[in-house]
């Protein structure tokens, strides 16, 4: 079985290197095909591991070599395929295989075709390192690796100019990439501190050792660990207040948004919390804080999605909101529920994004949903896929989202955090509303695109074929809830919901009711011309449309003072003190050299004179310093 672990891990790396070798060449179809095929190999290996694990119930461990060995610190380069990491592996490799195939069509006219596949496979490799590592150091390497690939891919179209908001409402890709990278850097510092605390108190970073000893520690220390690790998770999973980068990350190519900023990378934070459950189950207070933050983000992000007009940003806010749901489950101790929602969400959110990619392609990269409408007639399959994904996202029976999301609501209710439950419930309504607002505005109603001179067309057949498995999973994945629970609770703690009978039915009914009414409201309103323009004048609309003015606030609060500070550091500190000192020393040497230059006149008699002077000086020195007899 070790063989399959290594194949699953290194096949994407091989693909990445292969495509990378063609990076500067014009488009070669082979790079796309080879990387996709290698990812499929990786997916099959993950599946084999999954079935093996189902049978033997024993995790596969591989130690490649000792990586860092200094003094008492010993970090091996080891990997593990246990219940949690296998679930992550299968999800990651499945979605990324499909996204790779899809990208062959999506990027077909892009001059960076080969480069794109190289980055995308490198991302998958990093993500696999992240989920498969058997120690925190390896996890951190993967963590940084996905951050790097995310940066490369958000800024994939780095040559696009940074235009003022009036010309182009979206920001430049390179700016977005830097924002994402810097935000993550802030969070990673927190995570590093968390790792230091773990190493300081336990003396190892190996999961087994850490989790076996963590309950012996002082509760205050465990709390510190939990807080700092969660700061890292907040950055990667874009939780408030480090959330602004995710919406801006939509500047990358759409398959990237589907794979990285919806299905896999952003769930790394959730994975970290789930993986560190022995730490978090010791500190329910921090767990409650995580859950509360998650519920807040769930509503907060959903409310921003309600009014946004940008196709991809709506889905991005939806991702944020769903990540909030996952954190609620993880925070309240229902780790397997969080993991389950992570998996189902990966399927339907990737599907939604790929559908959005088709729409963008058809509309020449137009993103404003108010310039679309009536696209159902020309893009039937895309529309059907996106409706399926939206139904799953809204949590309608029998789609996948119903099972996972409803479970989270039940958990919140069961833990007697009724306020959290209420927030999530409202969030569910909002989710349904904005999903179907998007569907209605894009696919139905008046064909506004004709006014703007677009000629939409359906995507390639293989792009649709790549979406089909995701659509299937978005429908059926929910029915695997029980085997899933049984499988992952071999490793994760069990969580039983104690709500039965009429109350459980009532809860499900309530949730379905608000989701359905959200859908009904969206369908009714937008099939009758939408909301009146007066809405746009209200304060609340402006507040939501401007993302609660948080980007502006950050600009004023952090970026501008930082700019000022940098200016002072540059003009006052650097130029006047550091540079001045260096220039002064250089000046002395330069001037003395200039003065001493006359010695080298090339005139023999002058040089002889210098020689004699030197001789005399040496003689004097000999006389002065000769030992006295």
């Amino acid at each position, binding site marked *: 079985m070790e063989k399959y672990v290594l194949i699953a891990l290194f096949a994407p790396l091989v693909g990445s290197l292969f495509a990378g070798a063609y990076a500067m060449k014009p488009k070669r179809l082979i790079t796309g095909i080879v990387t996709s095929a290698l990812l499929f190999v990786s997916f099959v290996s993950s599946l084999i591991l999954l079935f093996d694990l189902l049978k033997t119930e024993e995790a596969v461990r591989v130690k490649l070599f000792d990586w860092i060995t200094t003094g008492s610190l010993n970090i091996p380069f080891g990997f593990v395929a246990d219940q949690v990491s296998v679930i992550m592996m299968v999800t990651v490799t499945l979605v990324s295989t499909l996204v790779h195939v899809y990208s062959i069509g999506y990027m077909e006219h892009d001059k960076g075709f080969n480069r794109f596949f190289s980055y995308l496979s490198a991302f998958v490799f990093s993500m696999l390192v992240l989920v498969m590592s058997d120690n925190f150091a390896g996890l951190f390497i993967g963590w940084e690796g996905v951050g790097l690939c995310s940066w490369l891919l958000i800024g994939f179209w780095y040559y696009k100019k940074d235009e003022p908001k009036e010309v182009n409402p979206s920001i430049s890709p390179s700016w977005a990439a830097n924002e994402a990278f810097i935000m993550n850097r802030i969070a990673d510092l927190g995570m590093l501190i968390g790792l230091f605390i773990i190493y300081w108190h336990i003396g190892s970073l190996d999961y087994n050792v850490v989790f076996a000893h963590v309950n012996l520690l002082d509760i205050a220390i465990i709390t510190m660990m939990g807080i700092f690790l969660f700061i890292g998770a907040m950055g990667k999973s874009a939780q408030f207040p480090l959330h602004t980068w995710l919406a801006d990350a939509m500047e990358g190519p759409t398959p990237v948004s589907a794979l990285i900023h919806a299905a896999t990378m952003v769930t790394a934070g959730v994975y970290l919390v789930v993986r560190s459950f022995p730490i978090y189950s010791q500190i329910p207070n921090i767990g409650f804080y995580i859950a509360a933050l998650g519920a807040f983000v769930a509503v907060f992000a959903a409310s921003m999605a309600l009014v946004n007009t940008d196709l991809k940003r709506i889905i991005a806010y939806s991702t944020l909101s769903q990540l909030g749901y996952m954190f609620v489950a993880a925070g309240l101790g229902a780790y397997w529920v969080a993991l389950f929602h992570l998996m189902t969400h990966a399927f339907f959110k990737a599907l939604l994004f790929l559908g959005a990619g088709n729409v963008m392609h058809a509309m020449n990269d137009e993103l404003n949903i108010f310039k679309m409408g009536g696209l159902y007639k020309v893009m039937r399959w895309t529309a059907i896929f996106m409706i399926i994904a939206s139904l799953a996202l809204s949590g309608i029976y029998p789609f996948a989202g119903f099972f996972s999301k409803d479970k989270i609501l039940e958990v919140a209710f069961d833990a007697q955090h009724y306020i959290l439950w209420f927030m999530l419930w409202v969030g569910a309504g909002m989710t349904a509303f904005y999903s179907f607002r998007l569907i209605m505005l894009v696919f139905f109603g008046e064909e506004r695109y004709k006014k703007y001179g677009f000629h939409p067309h359906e995507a390639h057949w293989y792009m649709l074929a790549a979406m089909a498995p995701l659509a299937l999973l978005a429908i059926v994945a929910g029915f695997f809830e029980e085997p899933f629970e049984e499988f992952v609770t071999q490793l994760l703690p069990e969580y039983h919901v104690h709500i039965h009978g009429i109350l459980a039915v009532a809860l499900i009914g309530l949730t379905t009711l608000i989701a359905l009414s959200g859908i009904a409201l969206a369908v009714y309103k937008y099939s009758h011309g939408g909301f009146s323009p007066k809405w746009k004048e209200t304060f609340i609309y402006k507040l939501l449309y401007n993302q609660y003015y948080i980007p502006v606030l950050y600009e004023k609060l952090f970026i501008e003072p930082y700019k000022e500070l940098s200016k002072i550091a540059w003009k006052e500190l650097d130029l006047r003190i550091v540079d001045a000192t260096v220039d002064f020393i250089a000046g002395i040497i330069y001037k003395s050299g200039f003065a001493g230059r006359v010695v080298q006149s*090339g005139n*023999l008699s002058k040089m*002889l004179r210098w020689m004699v002077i030197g001789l005399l000086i040496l003689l004097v020195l000999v006389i002065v310093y000769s030992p006295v007899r």
Partner: protein
Amino acid sequence: MITLTHYLVLSAILFSIALVGVLRRKNLLMLFFATEIALNAINIAFAAISKYYGDLTGQMFAFFVIAIAASEVAVGLGLLIIWYKRRGTIDLDSLQTMHG
């Protein structure tokens, strides 16, 4: 009685004369003369000290110096003649082709 000191003083005086010659003269031929004087000043010192200690090494060394000085003069004069043929002068300042 002529002691070692007298020889050494003579040697020092001769060496100083040579040094001044080296520094002051502009004619290359004179420079050669000055260096010969300097070498012979050293030879005197060698011979005197050798006699004083009763050790023949110093005198042997003086012979070496004489031999080497002779060959040096042979080579040096050859170069000097070539230089004179090229430039028509053996003034020291005419040797200056590099400037600092």
